[in-house]
């Protein structure tokens, strides 16, 4: 469509803006409503995570990993712990593995709930956001019941867990799952198939497969573009290969494959898969087994390096740990999934209208704590 070109205006969707999911500045060159170029500026939330890790011992790094992606800190712990156990060749017993899978999947549901709620909020639907938060509170109560904290847990330690799950935990989780399943359908009915939301998100911000891979996008954003890649299946760690669950990918029901709607809908389907995994994990969890069994007294990994990846709600989280044999890490690099998701923003969001740019940003589900580290 022939655009009438007025002169360009530079607009700062500034570090302090309701729709930037944290402290991010999008410098946008717009001509009227049509956005021609986006340059994200980050670093407002940079807390020198990697420099800190070079001054604290391996046990003390765990509270720092919590604070990178504060919306799914259980998965951040899980990633670090898997990397460390692979470096130090520690094998944890069955009960710990099952508890870790249950906790990671509960955290995935909580994170996806918040993401779908906020995506609706970015498009103007206020109520589903509050319903999503209400359900998320139930999960946070379960975490609080186990490790005391609601958001930043420091729960998974290298070689085990900080606490075993309390007595009433399994029943409470089953109760939560039965309560939660009709709620997903309710969220889907009010948001996913709503014509206005479909109109606002179908065929918008389409991310084709090769761009996604070349930009290193992972997680639900990649699966929405039709690539069936999930670390829990393709490069399975912990005991994920024992559970049978399928990986939802975007089929372009309401538009083309890989558009905003697909990224949103894939997360809703993934929540259902996580509920399936939790049910199987809780069923097959061994009753006995001490969670402190293989906790090393003093963590001194042998000299060498490891790069291990786990599937967080936002994508592949990689920890590259280089140790020189001392109890303090020599170098720790965290490969953050939201970092790559934000890098694709300029590619897929240029040329759309201002409100679409924010819808695309919402569908990518980025968390600034993890990007800035």
């Amino acid at each position: 469509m022939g655009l009438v070109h007025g002169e360009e205006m530079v607009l700062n969707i500034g570090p302090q803006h309701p729709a930037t999911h944290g402290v991010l500045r999008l410098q946008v060159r717009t001509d009227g409503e049509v956005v021609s170029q986006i340059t994200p500026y980050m670093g407002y939330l940079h807390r020198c995570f990697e420099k800190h890790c070079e001054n604290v011992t391996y046990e003390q790094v765990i509270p720092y990993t919590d604070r990178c992606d504060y919306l799914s800190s259980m998965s951040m712990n899980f990633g670090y712990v898997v990397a460390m156990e692979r470096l130090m060749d520690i094998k944890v017993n069955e009960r710990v593995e099952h508890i870790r899978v249950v906790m990671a999947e509960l955290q995935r549901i909580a994170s996806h709930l918040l993401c779908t709620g906020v995506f609706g909020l970015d498009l103007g639907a206020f109520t589903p956001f509050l319903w999503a938060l209400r359900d998320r509170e139930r999960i946070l109560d379960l975490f609080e019941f186990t490790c005391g904290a609601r958001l930043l847990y420091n729960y998974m330690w290298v070689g085990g867990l900080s606490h075993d799950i309390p007595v009433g935990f399994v029943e409470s989780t089953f109760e939560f799952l039965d309560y939660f399943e009709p709620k997903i359908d309710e969220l889907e009915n009010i948001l996913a198939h709503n014509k206005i939301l479909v109109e606002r998100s179908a065929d918008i911000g389409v991310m084709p497969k090769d761009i996604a891979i070349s930009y290193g996008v992972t997680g639900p954003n990649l699966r929405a573009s039709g690539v069936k890649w999930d670390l829990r299946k393709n490069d399975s760690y912990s005991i994920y290969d024992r559970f049978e669950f399928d990986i939802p990918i975007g089929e372009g029901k309401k538009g083309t494959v890989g558009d905003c709607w697909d990224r949103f809908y894939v997360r809703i389907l993934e929540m259902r898969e996580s509920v399936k995994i939790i049910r199987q994990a809780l069923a097959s969890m061994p009753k006995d087994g001490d969670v402190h069994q293989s906790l090393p007294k003093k963590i001194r990994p042998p000299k060498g390096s490891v790069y291990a990846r786990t599937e967080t709600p936002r994508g592949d989280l990689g920890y590259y740990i280089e140790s020189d044999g001392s109890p303090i890490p020599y170098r720790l690099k965290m490969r953050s999934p939201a970092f790559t998701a934000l890098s694709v923003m300029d590619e897929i969001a240029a040329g759309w209208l201002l409100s679409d740019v924010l819808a695309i940003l919402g569908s990518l589900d980025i968390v600034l704590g993890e990007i800035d580290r």
Partner: protein
Amino acid sequence: MVKFFTDIYTATSTILGGMIITINHLFTAKRGIATLQYPEERWPRPERDIGFDHGSYNVIRSRLHVDMDDCIGCLKCERACPVNCIKIETSKAPERGEDIKDVKHIGITSNDSRKAMVVTRFDIDMTECCYCNLCTYPCPEECIFMTGGPNSKKHPIDYEFSEPDRSDLIYRFAKPGTKEGMEKLLNDDNKVEA
């Protein structure tokens, strides 16, 4: 032309469907209340249908509290803290396990281990504490703990501890005057020997 009408039909049907869901919430609001009237209903929230009561918590994350009579000054919590927000200074006690009257120092701890050091300064900077609970595990006497939850016998839950002035958030758990008392004591000993 057909798309014109199907669009209208899907628009009206989905919006009406959504509105029916919201109106259900309006009428069943009493049962689904998720919020808490803060000044009256405080945390810990009354047992909701998730069914766990306050005492059976595994661990709690709230304000740190140190029970000075049991602290033997082993500095393990100071080393375990990832953000270095604990600072302890100790001085040698003249005899191991003896009470020292004028600095109110009790020689024997509750699980009767004898104290070799007198803790003259025990500061925790609550503005820096990241509530990770790593300091409570290594403590041999379990004298540093987070208030409430399983420890509510020792100290009731206290999560409303905001202060107008930030320097009030540096908690000084050492008994006041122990530092000067110990210095005076040391001077007296020196004078006696000299």
